[in-house]
């Protein structure tokens, strides 16, 4: 066990855990932020996507000891009131069905739009292919990302 000081959603958090504990379980079990989801544990489904220093990271494969000074942002910290342009677009397009994968989808989408504010359809499809949605909401996810890009750039 070891103590780690983490910066999560702009706040400082201290946890005493096994250094190999993946960030996913630190967030869910120790910090009480359960918006980041467990899907596969091997970085294949994207449900656990968070940002570390603004970049999309699969938290199930990120041991807590590697985070260091990195600023972690989870779905809970994406905006104060749930009004980030991507979250708003998700609500407008009524994207979720079961909703379980959507936090990861939104975190991947926001990271994409940060790097590429005006992605083409093909760029969206490629960038979002690491996030599985068993309900099949891909067409709506694409529409929401395009709408968020438009609103963001307006």
């Amino acid at each position, binding site marked *: 066990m070891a103590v780690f000081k983490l910066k999560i959603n702009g706040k400082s958090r201290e946890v005493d*855990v*096994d250094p*190999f*504990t993946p960030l996913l*379980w630190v967030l*869910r*079990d*120790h910090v009480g*932020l*359960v*918006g*980041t*989801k*467990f*899907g*596969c*544990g*091997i970085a*294949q*489904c994207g*449900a656990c996507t968070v940002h570390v220093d603004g970049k999309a990271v699969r938290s199930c494969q990120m041991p807590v000891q590697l985070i260091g000074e990195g600023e972690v942002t*989870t*779905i*809970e910290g*994406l*905006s104060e009131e*749930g009004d980030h342009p991507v*979250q708003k677009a*998700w*609500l407008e397009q*009524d*994207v*979720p*069905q*079961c*909703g*379980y*994968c*959507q*936090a990861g989808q*939104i975190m991947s989408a926001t990271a994409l739009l940060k790097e590429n504010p005006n992605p083409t*359809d093909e760029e*969206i*499809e*490629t960038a*979002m*292919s*690491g*996030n*599985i*949605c*068993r*309900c*099949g*909401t*891909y*067409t*709506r*996810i*694409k529409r929401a990302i395009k709408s968020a890009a438009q609103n963001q750039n307006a």
Partner: protein
Amino acid sequence: MAILKTKVGRRSFLKTSALAGGGLMISFSWLASCKSGKDEKKVSEMPDEWFELNGYLKIGNNGVVTIMSPNPEIGQNVKTSMPMIVAEELDVDWETVIVEQAPLDTKLFTRQLAGGSQSIRQGWNSLRMAGATARDVLRQAAAKKWNVPKEEITTSKSVLEHKGKKLGYGEVAAEAASMTVPEEIELKSKGDFSIVGTPRVNVDGKKIVTGKPLYGLDIQKEGMLYAMMEHAPAFGMKLKSFDAAEAKAMPGIKDVFSMKSYPDDYERQWSDVAAFSEFVVVVGNSTWEVLSAKKKLKVEWEKGSELESTADHLAKLDNIPDSVVNVARKDGDPEKVFQNAAKVIERTYTAPFLSHNTLEPMNFFADVTADKAEFIGPIQTPEFMEKSASARLGLPLEKIDIQMTRMGGGFGRRLYGHFLIEAGVISQKMKAPVKLVYTREDDMTFGTYRPAYRADYKAALDENNNLIAFHVKAGGIPESPLFANRFPAGAVDNYLAESWTLESNISVGAFRAPRSNFIAGVEQAFIDEVAEAAGKDPIDFRLELMEKAKNAPVGKDNDYDAERYAGVLRLVREKSKWGSEEKGVHRGVSAYFCHDSYVANVVDLEMKNNEPVIKKVYCAVDCGIVVNPIAATNLVEGGTVDGIGHAMYSAMTFKDGKPDQKNFDTYRLIRHSEAPKDVEVHFVKSDIDPTGLGEPPFPPVIGALANALYKASGKRTYSQPFMAKSFQLG
């Protein structure tokens, strides 16, 4: 205008009122104010008092209304759509409605189960009645206050009106709670609907996009322990012995033990399907500690029954003994007609086992004490698992409490609640609240899989290219996908349907649109080949058959409405501009009926770098009244993508009883870049009471896809998954 006897509803309501302290009258109850959903709508303040008008709804003194959503939510939108139906008859302002997940109460609610695309179908009347009777007592209360006849009082958006005088629902809610529910109730004319049939966004949408705890896996309670289990690595194996010393010594570990979820003498009901019932369990303080200790377990397993392999299955499927084949339906004299036909077309189709792979793995929270058991988590069959938990834990039924969470997918997997029982047994032993969590590997290798199927088809044409005989022989391991009375039964004079099954110890269960998820696609691919052999347009050919089924049906048990069937085909023909597709676009069509609904598809494919790219899918759907168009469209889009995905990429295979696929690195689910670029959904305008929608969009698109792939490649595909290079069953 429909009038419903409230008898059934009233009896239920009396039970509620009894709970709330009333007698024959429905009395109000003071309920703790519920803040859920407060931030989501224009509900700015919670009321000081709630008045429960019946078990489905309560009205606050400020006019805020809480509507209970009775059924489990698996992503099919019932938590929004079912309360919309209550709200419609109540004539309430939807913006002031808060939705809560109802408790499990089988006496009050109709069929609290998510399965068979039946929630709306079976709930339709009781939901309407709940809204209408509440509106009636509100009108009674206003009539008393104003001293005017109830019949003269109109309602609109939570306001009662009589000749210019107005009262809000909240202002008379207290009085309304003491009014008598009438013997029968008049429902709205469907033409007057103002909520049903209009798009309403998901009531949990804001919580989903902000990451609020909604799912079973998100449950955290004071003193809660985490549990994981190790099950046999292969179907047919059982526990021999285990060494827990190393695992027990790991940090944060409370206990390691073996347990039986279903003892040998336990009488299982249908929702208790589970191939494995003896496990080694690790319990500890956190998920990671338990996961790390689980890796240190040393478990020996031994053979208990047959260790089956896909290779053996394939061999068996090629040699179905006549002794296991049963005739399910026979019309005319098909054997004779086949002998004398001008043309006979024969084809064989196969598909592998499939794993459900809900994105939220199986899990459940249980807190079992000496005299009661509390369960919270994702379950499609709470009504049934309540009985199982009672029997297994030795507690009376009324001491079992199951709270339903929003589910991270269901697709049939969570009809089988063994994981609830496992959590209960672990909690009972630990004398502590426990959350049992499956890893993805546990989830995928302990499935209630979609069975493996095979279907053999034969069709006969006469010299004028009329379909004169049709034979389907279909079966599976270990379930037949045959629906003997579905199309083209009823449209062909000489028809034979046969069915068979082969036993297996691999556990199977319902998978989104059970049986239809295979038979629709292969039947529609075969009919395409027959149409081609007859030299006819595939839509014209199907419409001809439906015309015959409508005007001169063969047999009397045909379970579809040929006119509605033809309706979706005509609609998809019109919307896709069939026959005038762009150059380079390859098209396939299909249509299918299941869960009382009709869906037709046109798939448009392009070839890019020798790989098929699905450009667009057109869907025409007849599911009666569409309750919530935005959600219904989403469900059809998703079902289409899901159907295509499984037909193209997914397979579960076995070697010596062991699943070859254990996680998403080997089990392929469709990904964003592989999904159709566009899905266009059209609904048939209808005033028929709603029929199924969660499942019907999945099966037919597989046929349209197969037919488009043929147009693109010149080759027919007979084995799923279509895109598998390494694996093809059959």
